[in-house]
């Protein structure tokens, strides 16, 4: 495990000063960007104070998709919570379930069978490919528009994402909200012949990643639009608690899959992808690199899934009556968006006393007031897109 350097907090211009400090004459134009705007990735809203095309100040507003998930969880038995958190990060539901159940298992001190752990890691890597493909498509939409080249990249990415969803459908019966992780293991075993289908899908996805790279990372307009745009330095990223691809794009070599291995990652070597610069281009590089790495990992793991049982067995007769002993536990895993943490306080009953989910996207959005000012409206869209925010998990 590589230790992170100690961070020295330096004085930075506070982006949250009242607008009068920027604009005593009241000459700036206030543009409400969202929540109905087509490229805010859901219902995010930014108040942009504009001087012509230049953004002077940004006030992000979250909460338009708040569904009180954490409160709802306090009224549900532990096995009933999994399908709820599926809807948090609706682009990678697998990792949501994984993080949640890992927290419960840690609190119960339940040993997950080796086969189930491998399957979970395998699902997580497939989900990472699907999630990053969707990001690449929507990012291209942000740069190129729905009536242009952006839509072409978007639909091509969706074509490959379908392949991954088909694989999940084969295992779980669901394409999106799987509900396949459960206390002590998995609900659905891998069907016969599944690994051959996985390899067939990867044979298609792998070469097509090269196509996407030629459409984006080797495209002059893409490079012009992303190079040096939304530059985030590593120090600020660490201050704000930003994790995942955005942090790795700042040159910080941090990935929980390697640094705090969970499930199969203690047996499989993960090559962490990093990039320098911290701009939109670096983020794109990291995510495309991670897709390649995930393709490699899935290839490596899919044949090596050990035999055995997929569930540790039920600790009580009725799963719904599972009680977690008094105490608290925090478990964090690496999702496609970064560190997804689950903090559980249990009072010994069959319901959680408090369940706090730490979404990586919320922290990513907190960087916007620092990095957007000075950019144009076009850049603001690109920067927001490069953060890969999923409002379902930001607002919960």
């Amino acid at each position, binding site marked *: 495990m590589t230790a992170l350097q100690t961070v020295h907090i330096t004085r930075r211009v506070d982006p949250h000063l009242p607008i009068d400090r920027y604009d005593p004459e009241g000459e700036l134009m206030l*543009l409400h960007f969202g929540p109905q705007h087509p490229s805010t990735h859901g219902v995010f809203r930014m108040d942009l104070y504009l001087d012509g095309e230049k953004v002077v100040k940004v006030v992000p507003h979250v909460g338009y998709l708040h569904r009180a998930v954490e409160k709802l969880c306090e009224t549900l038995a532990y096995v009933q919570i999994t399908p709820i958190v599926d809807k948090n990060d609706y682009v990678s539901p697998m990792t949501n379930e994984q993080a949640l159940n890992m927290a419960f298992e840690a609190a119960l001190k339940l040993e997950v069978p080796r086969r189930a752990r491998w399957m979970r890691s395998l699902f997580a890597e497939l989900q990472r490919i699907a999630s990053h493909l969707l990001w690449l498509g929507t990012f291209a939409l942000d740069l190129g528009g*729905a009536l*242009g080249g952006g839509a*072409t990249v978007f639909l091509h990415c969706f074509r490959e994402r379908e392949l991954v969803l088909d694989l999940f459908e084969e295992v779980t019966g669901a394409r999106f909200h799987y509900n396949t992780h459960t206390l002590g293991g998995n609900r659905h075993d891998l069907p016969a012949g599944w690994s051959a289908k996985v390899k067939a899908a990867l044979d298609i996805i792998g070469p097509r990643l090269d196509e996407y790279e030629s459409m984006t990372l080797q*495209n002059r*307009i893409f490079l*012009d*639009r992303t190079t040096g745009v939304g530059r985030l330095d590593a120090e600020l990223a660490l201050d704000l608690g930003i994790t995942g691809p955005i942090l790795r794009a700042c040159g910080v070599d941090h990935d929980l899959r390697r640094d705090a291995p969970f499930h199969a990652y203690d047996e499989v070597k993960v090559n962490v992808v990093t990039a320098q610069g911290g701009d939109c281009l670096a983020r794109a590089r990291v995510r495309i690199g991670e897709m390649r790495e995930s393709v490699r990992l899935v290839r490596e793991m899919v044949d090596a899934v050990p035999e055995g049982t997929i569930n540790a067995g039920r600790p009580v007769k009725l799963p719904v009556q599972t009680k977690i002993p008094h105490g608290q536990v925090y478990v964090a895993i690496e999702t496609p968006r970064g560190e997804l943490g689950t903090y559980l306080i249990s009072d010994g009953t069959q319901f959680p006393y408090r369940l706090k989910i730490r979404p990586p996207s919320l922290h990513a959005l907190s960087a916007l007031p620092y990095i957007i000012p000075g950019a144009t409206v076009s850049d603001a*869209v690109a920067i927001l897109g490069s953060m890969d925010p999923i409002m379902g998990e930001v607002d919960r």
Partner: protein
Amino acid sequence: MSEGLVHGVVYSVVIVTVVLTATAMALWFERKFAARLQTRLGPTMVGPSGLLQPVADLLKLLQKEDIVPANADAVIFNLVPLLAALAALGAAAVVPFSPSVVASDLDVGVLYVLAIGAVTVLPVFGAGWASNNKLALLGGMRAVAQSISYEVPLLLSAMVPVILSGSLRLGTIVQAQADHHWFVVWPFFIGIPAFFIFVLAMLAESNRIPFDIPEAESELVAGVTTEYTGIKFALFYMAEYIHTLVASAVGAALFLGGWDGPFRPGLHWMVLKTLLLFVAVYWIRWSLLRFRSDQLMALCWKYLVPASVLLVGAAAVWVVLV
């Protein structure tokens, strides 16, 4: 006098009908073409192969409620869609489809086309200004900056065939190419770069990707047309397609020899060349991303304008020497 008038009226009616029909077909064609690029099928349900889709779209738009936003400048707001469509159609008047099929072969045809093309920025800016919408206003601002900038390379690159043929009349320019060589063939070192600059400037003038920043739906929702509904939106939409179509025809006449070609009537060649340019425009549109406004300006003033000035000079020297 009266004979000329009759000729003008008849040809205008014919050409307006043909251009409007061609626009509807172009809409269908573009949707099919884009769908194929994007691993989709495109329209399939309305008519054979979805051919009647543009008609269905138009009927749908006709039924929409006509909304004028509160505090909008209603006169300008209602006027500009019409102006946009008229300006785009007006340029079709001087396009020579064959030696005989032309509504009005003006002595200053090239000048007229460019002037009418420049007028199209007015409705776009008017829409942005009159909508009382911040997104539309930003779109209008961008449109003015872009169109005025790209007017320069468009004009200069269009001057190259004018200098080479010694006439501003489109018919004479095409005839000069039919008599000798198309300007992209000889002198190719002047003709091909000038043609490229013309196509780029034409993309920018008709607000097409990668230069569609006035519309920029991922940034400005729908740019200047954000507040437009129903038939007024349809007019803007049509104007864009007509503009592209006519600009393709002018490009074909200026550089690709217009109606000139072997073993077929001239009209066929003109239509073929126009369609080729048109497809190129849409191929670019559905493959590329969008520039940022400052990059757009840099491309225009740092590269296209100096290059087109050089080309005009080169064309002048060529005419004197050869």
